[in-house]
């Protein structure tokens, strides 16, 4: 989770990613951010997030994102 928050904070230092759970709904992160996040996750965790997992529920919060990474690395 901490590493994920670091990746996110690199993109938007002014957002509180610990608590925010409307990153997509409130348009805080956009499609460019999502692609950067996915490439960072691939670099740091060696996990590939496929296109079908790019849905608001998986990207709305740092928690959801880290759960997605955990699920994909367990699969």
């Amino acid at each position, binding site marked *: 989770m901490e590493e994920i928050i670091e990746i996110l904070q690199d993109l938007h230092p002014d957002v509180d990613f610990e608590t925010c759970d409307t990153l997509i709904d409130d348009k805080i992160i*956009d*499609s*460019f951010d*999502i*692609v*950067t996040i*996915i*490439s*960072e996750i*691939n*670099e740091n965790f060696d996990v*590939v*997030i*496929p*296109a*079908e997992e*790019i*849905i608001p529920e998986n990207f709305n919060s740092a928690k959801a994102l880290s759960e997605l990474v955990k699920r994909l690395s*367990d*699969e």
Partner: protein
Amino acid sequence: MLFTSIEFIAFLALVFLLYYVLPKKCQWPLLLIFSYAFYWIADPRYIIFILVTTVSAYLITLKLAAINTASSEYISAHKELAKEEKKAYKAAMKAKKWRWLLLCLFINIGILAVTKYTNFVIGNINSFLDGESKIKAVDMIIPMGISFYTFQTVGYVIDVYRGKQEVQRNPFKLALFVSFFPQLVQGPISRYGEMSKTLFSEHRFSGKVFSFGMMRILWGYFKKVVIADRLITAVTVLVGDTKLYTGSYVFVAMLFYAFELYCDFTGGIDITIGIGEAMGIRLPENFNLPYFSKNIKEYWNRWHITMGTWFTDYIFYPISVCGPMLKISKWSRKHLGEFIGKRVPVYLSSFAVWFTTGIWHGAAWNFIVWGLMNFVVIMISQELEPLYARFHEKFKVRGRVPYEVFQVIRTVLLMSAIRMFDCYRNVPLTFKMVGTMFTEFNPQIIFDGSLLKLGLGAADYIVLAAGFIIVLGVSLVKLKLVSVREALYERPAILYFGAMALLLVATLLFGAYGVGYDSSQFIYNQF
């Protein structure tokens, strides 16, 4: 059959009448019959193309769904499998599905590519050949709305492939989703999951729902016939003579075309959505006040929304996260540094999206350059974002109305200038003509009566000015998140129906009909 023709109005009246008079279970089959009739009237040969798309999508999605079901049944029946074995099984199943998806893409994108781009390719090859060896252009049928229904159908197939969408086992229901007549002309590009919620259900007549739909249809006609079809006269004259109409004339053409395209496209979509609404069918919104955007990226989130989200979901993301792209990204981080490495996937995928957006709009270089100009501007503004943030911080302009107005005007002007590629249809000529705005100083043409020689008289300009004020007023109300129709409906009925009657009368009286009226085709129909 144009939306603006008497034939279409009669066709629509018959659809509405039968839709509510016949038993409710006949509603969606009736729409299917009328959708095919609409297509048949346009050109009977078109039916073959839409049938190939429908049948291929139907059969392939059944196959994809069968693989999805079989693989989840296998996984749950074999809990003893090791993680690696499960992974290998899933990969094999995915590869199998991928082959079916490729077949679907090959058929459908293949038809789209051959019908729309054969002559473009021939033209480009010919530019390298001598007189006698030139290849003859092919007389190709381009089925009406092929880009729209192909994208809509392919989106559905990909959703089933991804396991995000239940398969439709009734071929006739799928056929209606592909061919629903109001959106065949110019979209919007619907998603099956959303559209199927209301398309196949039974709808009882409701005065409010029906009149809301009618109000939206009238609003669409007003924008199309009173404003867009009037402006097209002046725009055609202005871009038709590139020797005479330079400098400030180009600026006028730019603004006129921006307003014409807005009224044409949003008007057409209002008619489409309104037809759906009148029958209780919800279609996706395609616009969200695009001319109030503060930058181009925002503009593209608010203009032709269904195309933008389609490109993001089915082109931008898949390209950005595919294996080769992640490898390129890793390689670039290692060899070119973090700064460039991080940007590679975004840049390459965005380039692919904007190239496709350009060529989707038309098989010509002017459209490709138009798409790539958007790409360049978006990327520059993306890179300049930290600089903008510092500027906003230093001068405390964020949220200030005058600065926001400046941002909106800047975006409108920039978008309108880029769109001139669409008008002149020639890349060097467009650069030259837009350049004359800065090299030739003739602003007097705006006031000295020169604009009255463009095929529009003083009365036309009065109608256009009134139209502009009405469109702006409605947009400002919407900006406050108020539904104009709801607001009117809550007031005495005389106001609500009075507004509707006014719209109807204004459209009938002030529509740009003229002698031997033949309304122009919607601009987006050609895409």
